[in-house]
């Protein structure tokens, strides 16, 4: 029996990389099979289950009416929260601070990409606004958590249906009309695409857990519809050539188009 996969993972991988393929049969630039199931949680205002190979993330959006922040009195609030329990992976080593960093990154991403009109979530300036709590649970982790998180968050928000709320100025109360619902306008959808660099020159798209362990560094590109980028993260590691950066951006755009088509054509979004 060949134990080199466990004892010498990098050597094992190099044998495959010489032939331009990977142990799971994928090409270097191929993503794992991605499925998107929106509206799975009927009690949530919006939800989505994303499977990127074996990495499974479910996102549920619960809406609440609350007071807007002092800094942005005319805007609603979206709070992403990530739960990574030992359930998802036996080799999970993320501290709670790192998970908090991820939450902040996702929250900044929603603001920077301008994909959500926060002003539309405001009901009455300075008094009432929608607060959307987006809880993401990782059910299974086999590498590339970030891409799955971004995809589940954005597709869950795409499928959110909020009841129409009107502020009655005479009674100074909010009136909810549960029969009429509205969806968030998301004109541009950010899509994350991660790469792992191995041996300083080889670029692997959508690394799984094994590949992340042998990689020198991880690159993540977040692309929008119109060709703009709204995030580019490279962890400290092997140096990247400009050619490599170009290849990453190009692949990220192609991947972005595929994922956006998936989100826009998903079943419950046909009612929009």
């Amino acid at each position, binding site marked *: 029996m060949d134990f080199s996969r466990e004892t010498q993972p990098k050597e094992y991988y190099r044998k495959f990389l010489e032939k331009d393929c990977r142990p799971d049969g994928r090409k270097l630039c191929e993503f794992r099979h991605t499925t998107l199931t929106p509206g799975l949680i009927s009690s949530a205002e919006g939800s989505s289950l994303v499977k990127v190979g074996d990495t499974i993330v479910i996102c549920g959006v619960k809406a609440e009416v609350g007071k807007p922040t002092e800094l942005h009195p005319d805007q609603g609030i979206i709070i992403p929260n990530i739960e990574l329990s030992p359930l998802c992976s036996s080799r999970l080593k993320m501290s709670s601070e790192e998970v908090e*960093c991820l939450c902040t990154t996702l929250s900044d991403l929603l603001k*920077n990409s301008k994909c959500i009109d926060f002003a539309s979530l405001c009901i009455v300036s300075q008094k009432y606004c929608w607060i959307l709590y987006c809880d993401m649970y990782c059910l299974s982790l086999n590498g590339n958590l970030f891409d799955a998180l971004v995809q589940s968050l954005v597709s869950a928000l795409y499928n959110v249906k909020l009841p129409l709320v009107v502020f009655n100025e005479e009674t100074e109360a909010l009136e909810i009309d549960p029969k009429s619902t509205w969806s968030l306008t998301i004109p541009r959808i950010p899509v994350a695409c991660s790469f792992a660099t191995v041996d300083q020159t080889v670029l692997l798209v959508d690394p799984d857990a094994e590949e992340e362990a042998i990689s020198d560094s991880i690159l993540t590109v977040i692309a929008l519809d119109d060709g*703009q980028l709204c995030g580019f993260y490279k962890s400290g590691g092997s*140096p990247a050539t400009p050619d490599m950066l170009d290849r990453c951006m190009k692949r990220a755009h192609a991947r972005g188009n595929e994922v956006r088509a998936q989100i826009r054509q998903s079943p419950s979004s046909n009612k929009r």
Partner: protein
Amino acid sequence: MKESSVIVSIYGPGEFTSNQEQPIEVCLYGCSSPAAISRFLLQIIDQVILHNQVPRSTIRISVQTIQEGGSLLSTCINGATLALMDAAIPLRYLAAAVTVALVKEEIVIFPTKAQEEEASAVMTLVFNNIRMELLACECNGLWQPAEFHRCLDTAKTAVSDLFNIYREKMNKKLSLS
């Protein structure tokens, strides 16, 4: 760097006790988002230090923020590299970081806090001194790929100035002793 200033101190190479998980430890004091900065810093320093020259040793890097303004992340990285050189810890190469902001289509190097908030994109780019290769980066905001290349080129010029500053500082320090 303009608005931000940090003091970086290095303790090491020291004894590696069994209850420590990582040989390199980064501690940040006095800044508002320590977790994000320390993770980024740790990954860069991990690559820069020649581990086989300091086996079974711990290196503890403490970053004390004196003033938090714009470009804090790159200030921490530059401070850490200078401190590592001062401590004479064997390094693979030197790392220097530059923060570049796109403010109304103009590229600003080492933006202030006000400029960062106004900017459409803020990028922290870390280069090494061998062939000016990009080691790490963290870019947030909204920009076109062509603008990214412009920022990279501007950052490379700024970084080569930084490396000259490093060389001057080391020359000065070594000439006194």
